[in-house]
């Protein structure tokens, strides 16, 4: 395997919502095992960028590559559907609002994709669910329904659900933004643990401190463009762009 090839590569990503250009030609890449935090004011396009990596948003221009395979390649409708379903199985996605399946219990939430998509046997899938729940510290909730869980627990189950597909990368779309402050840490802890296991991660977040702690690289976006990027140390201590400085200042004072 070619380990120098980027795990994720985005080239010239452009996206319009009506007349509004929300991504103005973004280039960035994530190396295998790297953790990239994407920060920026709301409306900067960071969530749209993340969602376009697994094609929940369709780019109007540019390319997205996952481990040497183009995600948004031009195919006829049927072939593309097959292609994208395969690609998405290799990318775990964690949403701001968890999006657990409320009609399924925790075990079923985690096992439905491995069972239906990978043909995994039920017993094997349940063992896998237990292992994933153990990872996020919720093995005792395996038979609970989502309605019985706290926000932090829901998000940890959502992470376990994504991990159960054994993805190559994990995408986090403001995973802690909808949580009560006291529940943020338990989710961050799980993400840090994943980071220590060298999972390739792209984390869209509002939490500067967490970004500084966990990321190998920070990307700052504003108005649909990357303004600045660098290691957390140089980015937070010594931002080069005026736009970055004013954003960070607002954040520290606010």
């Amino acid at each position: 395997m070619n380990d120098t090839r980027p795990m994720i590569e985005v080239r010239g990503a452009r996206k319009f919502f009506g007349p509004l250009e929300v991504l103005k030609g973004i280039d960035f890449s994530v190396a295998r095992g790297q953790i990239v935090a994407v920060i920026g004011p709301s409306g900067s396009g960071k969530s749209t960028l993340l969602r376009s990596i697994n094609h929940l948003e369709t780019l109007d221009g540019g390319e997205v590559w996952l481990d040497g395979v183009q995600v948004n390649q031009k195919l006829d409708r049927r072939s593309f559907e097959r292609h994208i379903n395969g690609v998405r199985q290799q990318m775990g996605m964690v949403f701001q609002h968890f999006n657990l399946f409320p009609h399924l219990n925790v075990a079923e939430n985690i096992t439905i994709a491995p069972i239906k998509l990978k043909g995994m046997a039920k017993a094997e899938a349940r063992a896998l669910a237990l292992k994933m729940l153990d990872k996020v510290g919720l093995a005792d909730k395996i038979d609970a329904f989502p309605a019985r869980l706290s926000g932090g627990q829901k998000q940890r189950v959502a992470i376990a659900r994504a991990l159960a597909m054994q993805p190559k990368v994990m995408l986090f779309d403001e995973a802690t933004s909808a949580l009560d402050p006291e529940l943020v840490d338990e989710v961050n802890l799980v993400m840090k643990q994943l980071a220590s296991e060298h999972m390739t991660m792209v984390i869209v977040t509002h939490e500067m401190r967490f970004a500084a702690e966990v990321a190998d690289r920070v990307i700052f976006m504003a108005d649909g463009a990357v303004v600045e990027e660098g290691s957390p140390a140089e980015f937070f201590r010594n931002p080069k762009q005026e736009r970055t400085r004013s954003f960070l200042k607002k954040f520290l004072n606010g």
Partner: protein
Amino acid sequence: MDIALIGRIVPVFVQAAWTTVELSLLSLALGLAVAALVAMLRLSHVAALRFAGAAYVSVFRGTPALIQIFLLYFGGPQVGIQFEPFAAGAIALGLNIAAYMAESIRGGVLSVDRGQMEAARSLGFGEGQSMRWIVLPQAAKLMIRPLGVNAVALVKGTALVATISVVELTYTAQRFIGSTYKPFEIFAVTAVLYMIMVYGLTLLIDRLDRAYAGEA
């Protein structure tokens, strides 16, 4: 009040009410099948299919059910479509209620949070799979009440097919007026029988709704 008359007609009317039940069940089954199809059209990605679904709903909701029944039963033979009164009634009622039920189904699907579809897709499920395993089971719960309202309307609407001489409850009642001249007793008994049917249906809907609510 002619109590003796009521005692005499109740067995016959119960029999007729049973025909109403059969008619309702048949048109309900047809209605649900057509409604599922129309709802799928309405939710399609293809504009032409969406238009076809919307056209169906507009036509069948925008014209009186009675006219739809007449059009099929009286107008049909002229263009080579001929049915017995009972079949014509069941088909016309089914096609009519399907327009309303399609909207109930569509409403249920649209009420499921968009994030559910996104989460399913992000795991690698195709659109159809996501619908089947994630969205529809949740939508089903949300459809029970509105579909129940449609079903109640359908049961009461079956009275319309008396006009094409389907021997159901209302037709039977009208026939007895001629021989007894006691419309009060006769229509009172008729009304009570409709109420019993609707009440039974309401209980069934409640039970379904509770059974589904308990699941999650």
